[in-house]
Structure formats: structure tokens, C-alpha cells
């Protein structure tokens, strides 16, 4: 598969279809990969694809706006590309999406496949310009059981749960920095005048940062789990991002990055929208 991938990129670079290719290369040990930026045909030998390619490279699209890029995507990364195109961060013709068939990635921390891979319907990527390799999709459909289970807790229990989690948070902003849709030029968290968020690192402020970030990415977050993976203190951010996906689906029948023509749920309305308990 690596060979197939390398040949494809080589071809694209030689034919000047793209300026860059963004893919994965081996990092410091065999269990690690890191993003690789390849500009010349000779350099393509670096590129690999395996179960440790956990990063969502869609992140880099917002950083390299003007170039033509070939981007290596797992099936679950492609919605990110669509979402960013929808949000005008990139034009679709400037990116060649190379879908890499993926049998599921491994979370180094646990040595297990993350939950998203167990119920993955896009192991064989959908919507890519080129696809390398083949993989079989999971037969079980994606579900929100874990979120639904958490929702059953009382609000007090939820509050206590998150308070404990956010006491751990060191506000390193890794979650934000790896998030492909957190591309604001000047994040609210760092603003002053008005100071939306106190710069103190304490549980309350930390919690508010995450609440606002979650609100900001609602209807845009593709639940790619990049933030969850990046968190150095293992805050279960997936419980939040998955909640967003569940709400978008249940409240507005919307799935981020699924349909290029669907308007983001909060940027549109229907005169017949439900009243949702408004008095």
C-alpha cells in the first residue's frame, strides 16, 4: 500500500498537479507517525500509511490556503475537508483528497482501537479523489450509546464529573490547536477587551473554555477525535464532541461534513422549526 501511495503522490507532483503532499511518515519509533510535507517526487519515499496514522491532516488545510495540496485522508478525515470547504477556508479544487483505506487506528495510550473505529462505516473512504488500498467497513452502525448513558446522570453528577475532569486541565490548548475547525485567527480564549475568559488556570475557568469551545464547534465538529487524542491529561473530550454530533443529528438532522449542500444548523432556520419548550 505504501508503494501505491508513494507512486500516486510522485505522479501528482511530477505532473505539477499539486505543490505539496501532506501525508504521514515514521517518527521516533515504529509505533509513531508524524505529518510529512512532501514537495518533490524524490521525497515521496518517506510516505507511509499504517494503523498508527492517527492524526487528522485536514488540520493543515487552513494553514496552507494558497497552495494546491494532495492530502492523505482516512475515511473519517474526509468530512473535515468538506466542512472546511463549506466554511470557505479552502477551495475544493485546490486539494486532491487521497483516501487511504484504513482498518482502524491504534491509540498508543491504550494499545486499543478507539471507539470510533469499532463502528466505522468509512474504512473504505468515501468521497476521495483517489483511493489507495481496500478495507471492509464495520457491519455495526455508529451509535451514541455511551453519550446516552452519560445523559442519564443527574445534572449534579454531571457537574461533579466535569469538575473533576477540568481540575486536571492545564489549558495547554492542544485540543484547540489540533482541531481542524478551530482556525479562528484570534481565539476568544486569548482575547482581552473584552476578556471573554480569565487567564487563570482553575477548574471553573477551564470548564468555561471547554464549554465555549464546544459551543463554537457545534454543527462544525466532525467528531474526528483529534482533540481527544491530543489531550495530555486524558480528559474524555470525545464525550463532548460526540454529544455535539448527537445533538446536531437529533435536533437538526444534520451531520457535519456529510453533505456539501446542507446549511450549517445554526446558520439557517425553518419557519416550522419546533418550539423546543420555549414558553
Amino acid at each position, binding site marked *: 500500500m505504501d508503494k501505491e501511495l508513494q507512486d500516486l503522490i510522485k505522479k501528482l507532483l511530477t505532473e505539477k498537479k499539486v505543490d505539496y503532499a501532506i501525508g504521514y511518515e515514521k517518527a521516533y519509533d515504529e509505533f509513531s507517525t508524524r505529518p510529512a510535507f512532501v514537495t518533490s517526487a524524490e521525497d515521496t519515499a518517506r510516505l507511509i500509511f499504517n494503523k498508527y496514522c492517527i492524526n487528522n491532516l485536514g488540520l493543515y488545510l487552513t494553514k496552507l490556503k494558497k497552495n494546491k495540496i494532495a492530502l492523505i485522508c482516512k475515511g473519517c478525515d474526509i468530512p473535515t475537508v468538506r466542512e472546511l470547504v463549506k466554511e470557505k477556508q479552502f477551495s475544493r479544487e485546490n486539494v486532491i483528497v487521497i483516501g487511504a483505506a484504513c482498518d482502524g487506528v491504534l491509540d498508543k495510550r491504550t494499545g486499543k482501537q478507539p471507539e470510533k473505529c469499532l463502528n466505522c462505516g468509512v474504512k473504505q473512504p468515501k468521497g476521495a479523489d483517489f483511493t489507495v488500498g481496500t478495507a471492509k467497513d464495520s457491519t455495526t452502525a455508529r451509535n451514541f450509546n455511551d453519550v446516552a448513558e*452519560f*445523559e442519564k446522570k*443527574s*445534572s*449534579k*453528577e*454531571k*457537574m*461533579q*464529573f*466535569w*469538575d473533576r475532569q477540568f481540575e486536571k486541565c492545564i489549558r495547554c490548548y492542544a485540543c484547540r490547536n489540533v482541531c481542524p475547525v478551530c482556525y479562528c485567527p484570534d481565539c*476568544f480564549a486569548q482575547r482581552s477587551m473584552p476578556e*471573554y475568559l480569565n487567564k487563570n488556570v482553575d477548574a*471553573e475557568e477551564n*470548564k*468555561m473554555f471547554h*464549554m*465555549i469551545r*464546544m*459551543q463554537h464547534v*457545534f*454543527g462544525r465538529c466532525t467528531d474526528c477525535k483529534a482533540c481527544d487524542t491530543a489531550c495530555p491529561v486524558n480528559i474524555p473530550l470525545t464525550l*463532548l464532541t460526540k*454529544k*455535539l454530533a448527537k*445533538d*446536531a443529528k437529533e*435536533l*437538526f438532522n444534520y451531520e457535519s461534513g456529510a453533505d456539501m449542500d446542507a446549511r450549517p*444548523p*445554526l446558520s*439557517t*432556520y*425553518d*419557519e416550522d*422549526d*419546533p*418550539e*423546543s*419548550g*420555549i*414558553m
Partner: protein
Amino acid sequence: MDNKVPQLNIVGFLCNWCSYAGADMTGLGRNTYPSNIKVIRIPCTGRMDPMMIIEAFHNGADGVLVSGCHPGDCHYTEGNYYWRRRYPHLKSLLEHFGIDKRRFHASWVSASEGKKFAEVVKKVTAEVKDWRDNG
């Protein structure tokens, strides 16, 4: 309910054209309601950035009410439709973080619904009180 509920802080965001005028009408009709609500005037519920509500809870508000024009009556034609989408999403998200659903409310109050505004405030205050007293 009793209008005297000490030490309960509720922030009310009222749109200028309907609900703020409706609250004025409540006064004109001398209908009473608990004094816990502090009103902030905004041009339209479409202006309601969910951040402001998160900030209010963060600052220690016990409850938040957002009130605007009835659907179809928005002074700016569409603002309250956007709000009608933001509200269930935000309510669900806040609940997920442990902010009880009894603490966050929305209503439609027109410029002529003075009585309704008093009823809404009573109901919101009672719900927030219920949350504080009974957990």
C-alpha cells in the same frame, strides 16, 4: 408564588422590540413578579451569542431567561428563528455539562403581553428555586 425569593440571581435578556416592551407593559398594568430577574436589553434574540449565556452561568447566575418576539413577528424578520435553533442546542449542551435544565429558559413575549411576562418570570423563578432547594 411568593414574589420574595432572596438571594436568587436571574439574568434576563429581552429583545428591544417585543419582550422589553412587554415587560414595560407589565409595569403599566401593575402586575407584580419576583424581583430576582435583572434585565439586559438587547436588540433582538438573534444577537444572543450563546457565549453570553455561558458567561452568565460562569459568573454565578442561578438562572437565565432569554425572551423575544413570537416567531413570525421579529422586528428584523429572522432573528428569533435563529435563536429558536440556538436555544435547544445550548440547553442540551449546558445540561451535558451539568447546568440543570431548570436554570435556563426562553420565551416569546410580545409588546402587548404584559401579563404573560409576569407569568413567565414567576415560572422561571419558581423553577430556579426548585433547582436550588431540591437539587
